[in-house]
């Protein structure tokens, strides 16, 4: 679901980024008001879970792959606004350091995975929590919420891909950016997400939430701990070690091909916007280092990504604390 650069026109990217600006502004305000500073590092842990979830690629027949996002999981733990910020930062680190998702399309990726996914997922979860009763009602609600959330996000991504050939063509009538229209993009994106990727999101969300409910229930409370509970740290460690499983999935996710691959996917040509567009060189492209075994590169990328996210949110919490201290002084 990570839209690379040059798949969307610069105009679309600008609109999506403009849409995200008020979302980020409101989310930051809400997080400041609702989440105590001592709990902000938990956003980093949530973002790290989301980052790691996105590294577990799952293959489906046809050569395409997908992954869980974990947006509803963070929303269930910390609220949708916190989830929006956490997933946005995770996506930023993925784009800047690992080249997963474009720089220009960062706004669109955030709209899909950091806004639509957690907010839809959270809304469904809250609605179902009121309706469902029983011991596992919360988990079931989160599971259904996460399934609907990821499918809503995938649907938005499919529309963003699909409108490109309708809006942007060259003089010969060829698409300038993504060459696939809505008739291809919607079935291609939704087929995977309604089946395996949706189930992956449900499994990831419920597994992590069930683990936290059992091993670190204090994390679910509003005025909870500032320190990350040990079981949660261990779970992060296990996930990091298991990330090379994501390499078992061969092929590239639909809509994430490189400019050299797209002609062979059935398009028959490489759109002009892709050959002459932005070509950002990430520090660790595709979660790998040249010359390093891919499984090791994947583990190191997981460690660096998760650690950076935790550090970023710890520093943000420190800034918040010092501002409060200055205000009270």
């Amino acid at each position, binding site marked *: 679901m990570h839209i690379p650069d040059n798949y969307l026109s610069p105009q679309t990217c600008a609109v999506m980024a403009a849409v995200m600006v008020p979302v980020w502004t409101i989310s930051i305000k809400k997080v400041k008001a609702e989440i105590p500073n001592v709990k902000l*590092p938990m956003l980093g842990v949530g973002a790290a879970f989301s980052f790691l979830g996105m590294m577990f690629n799952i293959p489906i027949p046809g050569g395409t792959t997908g992954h869980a996002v974990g947006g509803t999981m963070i929303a269930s733990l910390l609220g949708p606004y916190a989830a929006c910020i956490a997933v946005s930062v995770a996506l930023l680190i993925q784009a800047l350091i690992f080249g997963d998702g474009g720089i220009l399309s960062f706004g669109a990726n955030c709209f899909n995975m950091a806004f639509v996914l957690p907010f839809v997922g959270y809304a469904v979860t809250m609605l179902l929590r009121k309706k469902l009763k029983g011991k596992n009602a919360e988990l079931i609600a989160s599971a259904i919420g996460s399934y609907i959330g990821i499918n809503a996000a995938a649907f938005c991504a499919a529309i963003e891909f699909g409108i490109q050939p309708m809006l942007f063509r060259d003089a010969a009538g060829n698409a300038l950016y993504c060459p696939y229209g809505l008739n291809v993009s919607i079935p291609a994106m939704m087929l995977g997400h309604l089946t395996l990727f949706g189930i992956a999101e449900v499994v990831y969300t419920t597994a992590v939430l069930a683990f936290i409910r059992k091993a670190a229930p204090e994390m679910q409370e509003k005025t909870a701990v500032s320190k990350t509970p040990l079981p949660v*740290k261990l779970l992060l460690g296990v996930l990091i070690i298991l990330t090379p499983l994501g390499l078992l999935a061969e092929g590239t996710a639909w809509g994430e091909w490189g400019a050299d691959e797209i002609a062979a996917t059935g398009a028959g040509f490489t759109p002009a916007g892709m050959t002459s567009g932005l070509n950002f*060189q990430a*520090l*660790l492209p595709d979660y790998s*280092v*040249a*010359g*390093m075994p891919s499984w090791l590169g994947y583990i*190191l990328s997981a*460690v*660096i990504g*998760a*650690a*950076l996210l*935790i*550090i970023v949110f*710890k*520093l943000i*919490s*420190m800034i918040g*604390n010092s501002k409060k201290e200055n205000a009270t002084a």
Partner: protein
Amino acid sequence: MKMNLELMRLIRRITITDINYPAQDKSRILPALRLSVAFLTILLCALSRNAIYVVMIIAAELAWLCVKPPAVIWNILKPVLLSSLFCMFVMLPAVFMGHPRTLMTVSLKVFESVLILSQLGSSISWKKMTDAFRTLHAPQLFVFTLDMTMRFLVILGRYSNAILEAVTLRRVGADHWKNAGTGGILGTTFLRAQQMSIETSEAMSCRCFDGEYRSYRKHKIGTPDMLYTLLIPLLVILFVYTQKAM
């Protein structure tokens, strides 16, 4: 004036580190051993011909850093980010000359090296650092000069900061007076430094201190030290392996 204030802030950081960190320095590993491992890691990083070794060390350092309290993380990262940004700025012409990877390679190495030193500096008090230098048989004159420099930086920094504050409070009027103020502060500080160096020499004579640093701390080599020593061959093996991978 602004530059002087920045210098004061840097000096304050050294002072704060030395005052605060003895309480946080709970490591049971011999400081000299930690210093040796840090130097070895930086040396191997500099010698590395590819990014694999550097990225591996950065991953390990970041994993260690992310479990620290936010204030400690910031103290460690501040010089790292500043030096990396400065390095990127200096290396920027490489991008325009068609070698963007060079910028990344050098900046990564600077990031890694300063991160290691910054972590070491934040977790070992200055006293233990001097002790570590002596344990590693660094020349007496080197340790003495280093120790005196650090102490005088702090003392003179505080002194010039006090004068600077006094001058700033009284500063009213034309520009030339402000410049005279800066020169005055530097001159007074220099004279004070001279006077203090004589006082230090006299104090050394009174206390029969001939400039030779002796370690009075008896550190029993334990299991943590043994395990930490294993890092040395491990780092070398890792380095050799990663260089072959190129």
